[in-house]
């Protein structure tokens, strides 16, 4: 009976103003910032893939360990092995980009699939799926991941698989709730009465028109969660392993020197995480508001 009432109360039937004219300035700023971040991420990913970096991220220099920004041409300083921070930050995106997309994809696909099944087909499917989603929900995420790491190996893809799976319940109940709401308002009955094929009802009307904003938000939240989860795991020692850089393991190794007053090695990646997650959240927020035509804050 758990219900997510994150259902938009109105189904916007707005006039034909282009969306940027009727949207709140604040939302546009949010989306703008969010898109900027996403663009940076994608650019970094590309740079990293083609190795177009200021310096070699694996290049060790034992005479330059933990240097402050600006030393010897290292724009953002160096880490605990004398490696260039900026290059590692750029390459660090690789640890999240594809695995994070994997997590999102799994969560969205299975989540909407189950949600549609439960909402559309009702009764028997609903009970079974509810049990399954409640089961997955009952696992404390981190403990489950620790177990998986113990069982297999600290591979970021396995971890993201688990993160994606544990997000399935959220999405499926959101979608299901939306469908139930639509049923209540007789939209679906109307569609069926009109003779529309099931495929179109589900994909075009339900998912595209009504679920897209919540799915987008969930996608951005999912990526943000992937990043934070990897950071927590790195603190425990189980995130992405050296020598592969990830923002999480960079914060963790830098944090060892935090108490001695050397803030920068851990602050640089922490800020990277901060701005990226902020961008993702704001993007989701802004898009949600614009697409739903609502004005909330």
């Amino acid at each position, binding site marked *: 009976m*758990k219900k997510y009432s994150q259902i938009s109360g109105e189904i916007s039937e707005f006039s034909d103003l282009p969306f940027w004219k009727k949207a709140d300035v604040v939302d546009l700023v949010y989306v703008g910032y969010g898109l900027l971040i996403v663009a940076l991420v994608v650019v970094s990913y590309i740079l990293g893939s083609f190795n177009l970096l200021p310096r070699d991220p694996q290049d060790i220099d034992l005479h330059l360990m933990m240097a402050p920004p600006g030393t010897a041409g290292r724009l953002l300083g160096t880490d605990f092995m004398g490696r260039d921070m900026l290059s590692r930050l750029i390459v660090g995106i690789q640890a999240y980009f594809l695995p994070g997309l994997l997590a999102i994809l799994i969560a969205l696909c299975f989540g909407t699939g189950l949600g549609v099944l439960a909402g559309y087909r009702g009764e028997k499917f609903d009970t079974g799926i509810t049990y399954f989603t*409640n089961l997955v929900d009952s*696992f*404390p995420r981190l403990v489950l991941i620790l177990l*998986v790491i*113990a069982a297999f190996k600290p591979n970021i893809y396995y971890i993201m698989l688990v993160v994606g799976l544990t997000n399935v319940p959220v999405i499926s109940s959101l979608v299901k709730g939306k469908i139930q709401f639509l049923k209540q308002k007789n939209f679906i009955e109307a569609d069926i009465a009109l003779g529309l094929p099931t495929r179109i009802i589900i994909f075009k009307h339900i998912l595209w028109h009504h679920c897209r904003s919540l799915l987008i938000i969930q996608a951005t939240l999912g990526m943000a969660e992937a990043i934070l989860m990897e950071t*927590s795991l790195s603190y425990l020692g189980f995130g992405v392993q050296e020598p592969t850089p990830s923002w999480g393991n960079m914060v963790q190794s830098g944090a060892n020197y*935090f108490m001695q007053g050397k803030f920068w090695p851990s602050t640089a990646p922490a800020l990277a*995480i901060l701005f990226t997650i902020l961008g993702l959240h704001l993007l989701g927020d802004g898009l949600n508001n614009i697409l739903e035509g609502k004005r909330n804050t």
Partner: protein
Amino acid sequence: MKLSAIRPIALVLSRELMITVLLLLGVSFVVFIILFASPGDPFSVLLEGQLSTAEAKTGVREAMGVPRSWYIQYLTWLAGMLSGNFGTSIRMGLPVLPEVLRVGFSTLILTIGSLMITLLIAVPIALYSAVRGTNKLSWPLTMSSYVISALPVFWFGYIVIYFFTHELGLFPIAFGFSTAGQKYRWLYQLLPIFVLGVGNGTISEVIRFLRQEMGRVMAEDYIRSARAKGASIWKHAFKEGLLIPVTEIIASKIPFILGGAVIVEQVFNWPGMGRMAWQAAQDRDYPVIMGIAILAAVFVRLGSLFQSVVYVAVNPRASKE
């Protein structure tokens, strides 16, 4: 709370309990299978300090009376659990149930406390923005909450500890016999709760959700008419716009916060479930892990139960759905 709400609540409770039992079964089974599939075993841990040959490990296993095949192991454990015996920790020899309950209680305090802090911060901001909309005050508040949500929690913990040690000269870790600053004991307990409450990454989501719900409810017709009549909108809006969404978001975020608790417990030396789980996972101490998995699942279910009960108490008619 009307009297008529009692019967639906009882119904909801009994149904939830039944579901919980089934869920616990499922959780324990999945955890067990994962453990069994892991390389290594708890017996090597016992023999650490000398390498354990296969015979030595078999010897240990027989000495401890652990059956060979996985399903017998699982069923034995299940039978024991049903009679209240969760076995004993392989590493420490202590009985699992009292130990897990002890740390579970500890983590529960941390979790609930941090949820309160999260709500304390999130609810006012959400309410304010829902009622007043965007203005000079709500926007920076919302933005700051978003920024705080994006911090890695252990890093935030380090910042807080650094501030307390270097600026205030206090060492904010809860220890029974800390030699200095006995009078700050309450502070030491409060700090990890504060850090987890602020840093668990859910504040932004809570604010957004609450604001949305509140906004939706406020826009509903019956509220508008109440407003036009000049009646207080709070009583009406409160139940549906605040109470229910709050319980809903709390229930859904508990697993997330339990995860954050693992980290905060390590940083602040809080004797909770997270530390025990991490150690037990490494040791393959399966009685302990099973116990913790069950308890964690119970916590999550409690949250869900709480949410269902509140929902039905407020809307007795809804239980007929």
